[in-house]
């Protein structure tokens, strides 16, 4: 069992409150996944710059690391975000690997920042000050591990491409085979986790020209097992459930937002929920919203 929450704002009005809203949704899903938690927030971006989300061991001195690399790091607990010119990304990644091999780049993109840790989701959200974050959309996950160990690396979301992230409730049965396919295609899956394979599969499809919606459509044929996926891209937000609909999902849509949760309880505190269109996403049907559209 895991818990998923997601919020995609259609209007700018609620953008300053995005983190606060997601945080209370995540808190309520603690009892679906008390092992660990994580979230991705699509906030402000600077054209020509890429944001690298870094994760280090407890006590990592991100300020000193930023000085050494030459780009400041905004630190939040075990994570830090460094904004670097796109042209310098490769050099910076190489410098990071050389100067701080214990620090990993867990997410990269124009707008996405990604945080995850082991611990009670409510505590994880507090440690990273999720409440204070703003943005256009965000996805969160509370984990009760089944397919791989309870580690920070095994927590969701998984990001395998720029501004792309995925959270998953369920378990995939053919992830080993898909992992081999992706390896042949040059996509590295860094953990033993089945959900990271799903994320990398979508990256693989989108790299080949699929839209997020098309990539989700293809995963219906290629990914086997139980899943409810919620996926984020720079401008989009997608939802897919397996054809059996093993894992719960409920959505709410208003003029202002589209929200996703594993259980209605997590939606109950959203503004205007009383008059929202509340519905259960159908199995094997791709749902997809895009701000650019």
């Amino acid at each position, binding site marked *: 069992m895991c818990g998923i929450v997601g919020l995609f704002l259609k209007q700018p009005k609620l953008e300053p409150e995005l983190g606060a809203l997601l945080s209370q949704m995540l808190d309520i899903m603690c009892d679906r996944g008390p092992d660990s938690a994580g979230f991705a927030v699509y906030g402000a971006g600077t054209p020509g710059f890429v944001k690298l989300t870094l994760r280090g061991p407890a006590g990592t001195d991100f300020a000193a690391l930023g000085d050494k690399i030459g780009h400041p790091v905004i630190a939040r607990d075990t994570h830090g975000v460094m904004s670097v010119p796109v042209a310098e990304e490769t050099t910076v990644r190489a410098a990071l690997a050389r100067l701080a091999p214990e620090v990993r780049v867990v997410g990269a993109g124009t707008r996405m920042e990604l945080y995850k840790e082991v611990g009670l989701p409510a505590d994880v959200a507090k440690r990273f000050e999720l409440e204070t974050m703003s943005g256009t959309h965000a996805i969160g996950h509370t984990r009760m591990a089944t397919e791989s160990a309870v580690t920070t690396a095994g927590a969701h979301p998984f990001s395998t491409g720029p501004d792309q992230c995925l959270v998953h409730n369920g378990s995939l049965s053919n992830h080993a085979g898909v992992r081999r396919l992706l390896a042949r295609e040059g996509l590295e899956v860094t953990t033993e986790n089945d959900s990271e394979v799903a994320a990398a599969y979508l990256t693989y499809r989108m790299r080949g020209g699929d839209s997020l919606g098309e990539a989700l459509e293809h995963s219906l044929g290629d990914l086997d097992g139980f899943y409810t996926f919620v996926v984020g891209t720079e401008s989009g937000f997608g939802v897919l459930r397996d054809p*059996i609909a093993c894992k719960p999902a*409920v959505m709410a849509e208003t003029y202002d937002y589209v929200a996703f949760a594993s*259980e*209605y309880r997590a939606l*109950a505190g959203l503004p205007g929920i009383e008059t929202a269109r*509340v519905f259960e996403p159908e*199995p094997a049907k791709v749902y997809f919203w895009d701000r650019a559209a």
Partner: protein
Amino acid sequence: MNLSLKPEAAEGETLVDLATTPLRALNGALHKLAADTNQTLWTVANPAGRHAIAAGLDAPITVEIDGPVGYYCAGMNKQARVIVHGNAGVGVAENMMSGFVHVKGDASQAAGATAHGGLLIIDGNASARCGISMKGIDIVVKGSIGHMSAFMAQAGTLTVLGDAGEALGDSLYEARLFVRGSVASLGADCIEKEMREEHKALLASKLEAAGLLGEVDISEFRRYGSARTLYHFHVDNVSSY
């Protein structure tokens, strides 16, 4: 226990606000009610999708829930009338024995699962596995139902005014299924059966119980039931088990 009584509460009416009263206090109070209780009308405010609201009741009372509920609302119900003014989560009225449950919105998966008796009415749609393993309940869905509904359904009736999803009535026993709209596909051993006068009368009685008699045309419904070929092991059916 903090069961807040509003001044305008009618005699015998108890108002419980779940924003301030723990759910266990509500359910505990409901479980204590005797068959001859005077507290026959309960109104529950701010359910906020909580799970197991009004589960395990066994008294001739009415519980009106003012908003959406989570999992297993009115599960195992006996005697009571439970009305949900909102959507219901997974397993509403699961294993109901008797009584009446009315969901004014949509119901999630496994509505009325394994239930032995009583009447469940869903004004909106019910999603997958509606009436799975039902054992005597009458279910009336005014909207449509999802896939694998009435899977291994043993007894009772499932009446659907809208459409049915894939694999309706898979491995069905003796439950009777009436669908007015389309059926995406029938499950193993489920077949369409002739709608004789006795079945029209049965359907009419269920529609009447749901307050729908005269509002829908009985001749628009089709009946589905078990072909009874999977009851006992037969080697020719091995791929269907």
